[in-house]
Each structure stands twice: as C-alpha cells, then as structure tokens.
C-alpha cells in the first residue's frame, strides 16, 4: 500500500549545495520518503535519478549524499546512523558508508534529513549549518590538519562545544582512495572511498548545530513501542552486558569462536592464528584490555560498545582516543602482529589521518607479502623492513600512505593500480572484491563469504554476511557457519533487514546483525507506524521497502559498471588455496557449491541467474 502522507519523525527538508557556484537551496523530503522511508534509500533514489551514466567519481557532477535515517533523533534504541553515498571510487558503481555518533541527530535537529553536495570548490571550504542558516566558509586554516586537530580548531573558532563535525583527514585531502569521513574523531564512514570524494570536492568538514526538534505522530503509542524494545534488551541482558564492555571483549577468551572462523593470517596464507599470539594480544593484564580506560555509547544507544584506549608505556606512550574493534583484531592477525601497543597505535593513527582501516589493512598486508616474496625491496620502502609482525613499519607505512610519501604515493591511487605497476603476478595476492581491498575471511564461514562477495558496495560485511545463527540470521532458518546449506536464505533475510535498518538509521549492533536480536522487523514496523503516522505491515516493509532499497543500488551498479555474476565470486586466492593448519585445515571455497548457493541467492532476490542482474520484473 503506497504511503499517502507522513506526519512525523522527518525534519522535512533536504539541503542542496553546489560548491562550484556556491548556491544553496532546499528541497522537500516527503516526496522521496513516501517511496523509500528515508536514510540511504533517499540517497540511492537521488543518485539513480540524477547522476548521468558518463559521470565518474572525480567529476564535479558526482553527488556526495549524506542521509540521516528516518527514526534518528527520536529515542528509538540505536537510532543514530547516517549513510554517506557517492560513486564508489573502486568499482565505479554505488558507494556507500555508514556511521553512527552524534552528528546525524544534530543534523535532524538543525532541520535537515539529507545533504546533497555537488560541484567542486576552487579552494578548501567547510560547510557550517546552524539551524536554517547554511554558510560555505573558508577552510585554509584547517586544511592539512588531522581529524583531532580539525575538531579542536573548529570548536574554538565557532565557540560552541555542542557543534558536531564530520571531517576528513590528510588522507582524504590527498585523495587517497581508501580514506574515510570521520565523526567524533573515531567513528569512520570508511567504505567506498567517501573521504576521497569529499577531499576531491575540497570540502574539509561539515559542521552542524541544531536547536530544533523531532516530532513523532502518536507520542503515547510510540513510547509503548519503545518500552517493548527496552524489554527485549532486558531479556538479552547477557549479550547487552558483554557488548557494554566493548566489542573486543569477547575475544579475551582465546577459544572464542571468531578466532577460528573469521581470522585471516598473513594476507590469506592461512586462516589460523596461533593460540599463544592470541593470548599475548588480548591478555587482560598486559594486552589490549589493560589499555581500555572506559567505554562510551553513541546517541540513544542501549548497547554502548566504543572503547576509549590510552597507551601508558612504551614507544607510543601518550596516544589516546576511541576505537578498537573486532576489525583491529582481524588486522593484527593479518599482519601477524601480537604487540598490543602497536595495534592500538596503528588504529589511532589511521583515525587521526582519516584512513579507512579495512582498506589500509588489506592493502598494506598485501605489500608485506610482496616484500616477503621479493617483489619489492627496502629501496622501494624508504628503508622500512616489511616483515610479518613488524608494528613500527606498519605505522610508518600508514603515515606514508596518508601523506603520499615514497611508496605511499603508488598505493594511494588504489591497490589494483599499484599491483599492475609492481608486476611479478602480485595481483593474485591482492585480496579484493570488485576492486575494493577486503580484510574478510571467505574460506571457512560460507554465509560470510557470500554476503561479502555479493555486497553492492564491494567487499563489506554489512550487507547480509552472516556468521552462523548464533550471531545473525532469522531464527527459523537452520544453518551452520561452515556449511553451504540454507546460507542463502539467511544472507537474503539479513540483507533485507540491513536495508531497512539503514533506511531507518538503526545501528546494526542493536538490530539484527549482532545476534542479540534487541530489535526485530516487527519492532521496526511498530516504530515506523506510530512515529511517522503511516500504516504498514511487516510483509510490506520487508518485501517491498527493503527489496526496493537493495534493487536501487543494484540498478545504479548496472547503469554505471559492467559488474556481473563473476564479480560476485570470492577472491581467486581463496578459491585456489586451502587453509593450511588449525581445526579447519583443508577448507577452501568450493566453486561448484558456492555457485549453487549463489543461484539460490539470486533466485530469492528475484535476479537473473546467468548475469546476476535484475530481471524485467
């Protein structure tokens, strides 16, 4: 049933900015929201409608879209997410990154649901949004500064501690392909090179301050729905408490399941990391947990998971800031580094420079392997020894990448380009999906591999990748992590709920991804109906709005790229090489079984099995 009118939750305006002509105008949100509810859906809709087929990511006509989910700004648990969409710098198709924090709600209170930026500024600028007042300001004073410095300078300059800032670091300014847009210095919108596009537009930051409100249609009914959600969180008390000690807390146990299933050692040479190294990294007394000084939460989130880290001794003494995730542990395994201080310092350095850590990890671990195999030598790396386990070299190399120094300049234009220049068949060792370097594991968790390979934004795990029913997936489908059966159903279900969560702005850790099932689709229906004053059923929301969101991204990819079925396969290395040790020794991606799974996946989405594209229907 089409939505006739929306009576709440949205701010009602889309801010349009042309940086070339410095024009600023507003547009109505409701006409888009009636079709796709909000958030990423609106971004996708605008991109499909307005970006012409010939446009590349570096053209002034490319759009940089910020979309705040429709429930953001209300008390809905975990409603704080912002979607940032643009042309993907790696695949040329749809690029999208998702980020939490306090920036999204502040934009809503300033009166805007989305910001669409087009054009290119002549000199560095930043955008200042203060309720209805929007200014394009000179950013010469902050150009070249790190994300931490930028935040401090802007807070001082504007004189309001409550402003929220989305900024790029030196990496984004230098158009390093895998650079991120940072919010609150630690939350990164990393995927698809959105920071690179922002840097290319010479837009240093977007500063927001809002004094307005977000109204819901039926306040009493809405609060009843919220109470239901809170009760569900209470019921999952154990999971909530574990998340509140930060996400890496579960990995303190050296026998935690993820240590065996999602870790890739030494750029894919093996999928098993030795127990002693795990204990050394995650030891409570001397490892990473000893540097955790506190945990904080995003806006309106009942499952706070952001650790605040501080290094108190050693070479990196004094470095501090938020952020250490499961991805950091994946990175440690990938470089075979078990020194906790180096890993924390690496993560904080990447945050400071505005780099996407997944890109950096995947790309640099490939370079380490090139060094091991003798494709490059110390001469190429300015004297750095890129041996496995060398944390100091990693941090130096990260800085070289962000500032485009030495070999960093070669890597900054994309790892695939660099592989072509280095030669010696090094392209085979680069783990990437649709051009975007990926840190993920494909050989052991089958649903994880399928979700990542088929992700419309190239190689990221938040578009349906599932790590077994214990973590994510519908309760009624029976499947196991390492088995091919029934995986496609779980991946499609999770893909749909994730679309929905991104349109509504709910964090996936509070939603269906973490396995906690704090919120389930029936909660979303209740919240949307009472908040926005519409009348939808669970069937409609899952099978119409969620499917439409995914299809819009697929349409964009079909229009702008030649991506087809073969691009939905896992990287070649994981199809050819087996796991060499550990309990899953001998595992690899079985092409026949994977293709069967892929067929089922296409069928469930209603796409063509041969090409992987949409059918006429």
């Amino acid at each position, binding site marked *: 049933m089409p939505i006739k009118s929306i009576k709440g939750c949205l701010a009602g305006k889309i801010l349009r900015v042309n940086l070339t002509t410095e024009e600023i105008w507003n547009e109505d949100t409701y006409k888009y929201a009636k079709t796709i509810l909000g958030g990423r859906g609106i971004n996708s809709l605008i991109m499909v409608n307005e970006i012409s087929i010939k446009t590349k990511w570096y053209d002034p006509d490319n759009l940089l879209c910020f979309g705040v989910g429709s429930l953001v700004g209300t008390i809905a648990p975990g409603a704080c997410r912002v979607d940032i969409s643009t042309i993907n710098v790696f695949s040329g198709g749809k690029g999208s990154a998702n980020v939490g924090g306090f920036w999204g709600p502040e934009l809503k209170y300033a009166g805007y649901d989305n910001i669409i930026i087009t054009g290119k500024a002549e000199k560095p600028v930043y955008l200042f949004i203060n309720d209805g007042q929007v200014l394009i300001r000179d950013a010469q004073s902050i150009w070249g500064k790190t994300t931490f410095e930028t935040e401090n300078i802007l807070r001082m300059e504007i004189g309001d501690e409550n402003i929220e800032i989305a900024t790029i670091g030196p990496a984004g300014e230098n158009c390093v392909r895998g650079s991120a847009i940072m919010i*609150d210095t630690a939350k990164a919108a990393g995927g698809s090179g959105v920071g690179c596009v922002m840097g290319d537009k010479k837009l240093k930051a977007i500063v927001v301050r809002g004094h307005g409100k977000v109204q819901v249609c039926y306040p009493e009914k809405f609060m009843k729905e919220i109470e239901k959600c809170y009760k569900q969180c209470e019921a999952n008390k154990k999971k909530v408490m574990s998340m509140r000690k930060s996400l890496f807390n579960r990995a303190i146990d050296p026998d935690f399941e993820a240590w065996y299933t999602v870790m890739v050692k030494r750029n894919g040479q093996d999928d098993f990391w030795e127990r002693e190294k795990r204990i050394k990294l995650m030891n409570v007394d001397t490892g990473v947990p000893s540097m955790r000084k506190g945990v904080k939460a995003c806006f309106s989130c009942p499952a706070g998971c952001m650790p605040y880290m*501080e290094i108190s001794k050693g070479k990196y003494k004094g470095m501090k*800031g938020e952020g250490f995730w499961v991805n950091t542990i994946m990175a440690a395994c990938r470089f075979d580094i078990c020194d906790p201080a180096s890993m924390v310092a690496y993560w904080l350095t990447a945050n400071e420079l505005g780099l996407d850590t997944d890109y950096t990890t995947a790309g640099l671990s490939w370079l380490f392997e090139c060094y091991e195999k003798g494709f490059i030598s110390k001469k190429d790396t300015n004297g750095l020894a890129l041996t496995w386990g060398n944390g100091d070299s990693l941090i130096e190399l990260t800085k070289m990448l962000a500032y485009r120094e030495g070999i960093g300049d070669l890597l900054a234009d994309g790892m695939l380009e660099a592989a072509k220049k280095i030669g010696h068949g090094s392209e085979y060792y680069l783990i990437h999906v649709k051009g975007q370097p990926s840190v993920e594991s494909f050989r052991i968790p089958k649903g994880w591999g399928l979700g990542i390979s088929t992700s419309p934004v190239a190689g990221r795990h938040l578009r349906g990748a599932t790590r077994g029913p214990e973590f994510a997936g519908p309760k009624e489908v029976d499947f196991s992590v390492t088995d091919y059966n029934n995986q496609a159903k779980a991946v499609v279900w999770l893909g749909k709920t994730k679309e929905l969560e991104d349109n509504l702005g709910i964090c996936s850790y509070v939603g269906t991804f973490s396995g906690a099932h704090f919120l389930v689709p029936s909660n979303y229906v209740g919240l949307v109906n009472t908040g926005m004053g519409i009348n939808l059923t669970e069937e409609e929301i899952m099978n119409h709005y969620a499917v439409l969101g995914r299809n819009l991204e697929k349409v964009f990819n079909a229009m702008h790229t030649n991506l087809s079925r073969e691009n939905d396969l896992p990287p070649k290395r994981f199809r050819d090489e087996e796991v060499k040790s550990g309990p899953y020794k001998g595992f690899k991606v079985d092409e026949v079984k994977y293709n069967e799974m892929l067929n089922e996946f296409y069928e469930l989405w209603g796409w063509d099995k041969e090409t992987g594209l949409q059918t006429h229907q």
Partner: protein
Amino acid sequence: MNPVAVLLLTPGRMQVIQYSIFIFTFSLEGGLAGLQVKRNCFYIPFTFIRFIIGPLMKKNIEILRNPYLCYGCKTCQLMCSFHHTKCFWPDHSSIYVYRNPQNNTVKWSIDYKTCDGCIGEGEPLCEKYCPYGAIRCRKNHVENKKEKKE
C-alpha cells in the same frame, strides 16, 4: 491596598517581583509560540505546565548521576525534553549532556529551575529510560533530615 505597594513593602519583595516577571514572560511566550507552531497543538498546555504549574507543584526531588556507569548516550536529556514538550527537543531539556570523545569525559548537569520531577509521568523519565542504570532519583535531603528527626 495598592498591589504595587504590597510588593514593595513585603520583606522578600525582590523574589516576588522576579517570580511575577517570570510567570508573565513565559505565559506570553507560551501564547506566541502556540500561534507560531501550527502542527503542535500540545504546545500551549505543555508550556503552561512546564513554566507555570510546574514550579508551583514542584516535587522535592534530587537527581543523581553515577559517572562510572554513565556512557554519555544522551537518553536522559532526550526523555526529559519529551516530558516537557511531547517531542524530542534536547534544547528544551532540564538535563544537559556534553561528551568529549578526545578525553573520555562526559559533562552532565541538571537545571532544577525547570525540572519538575516529571509531574504526571509516574516516575522520572530520565531514571526510567537510562539504559545503563546510571541515574537515581531521591527525595531532597532536607526532607530526609526531617524524616530522620521524626
């Protein structure tokens, strides 16, 4: 007797004058804002309750936050504004939260001039909805002393 003379002669006259100005300006604001904001028909009664009935019927309440349990998620600020205005409007909240991600601190304060202890809600919403159990409300310690004496 002339009411102005009464005001001037009473011992605590400054407070009385301030209070009457307070009531006058806010009832004016309530009326004007009610005209401006067409969609929100709740606005007038809630401004009325917040600024006029609220201070008169104020519960003797003290709201405490445990900084070790607080995660800085701003839920309390949001729920407070919901009580006052029936929409989510952090600027119209009695609670103020500021979180600095660079040094792991959360600034938290409450304005007792506007806090009415959540009249009509059963229990204070900031305490009810805090996901981390960091907020506790208790009766004012002056009352506690009285109770102890009894």
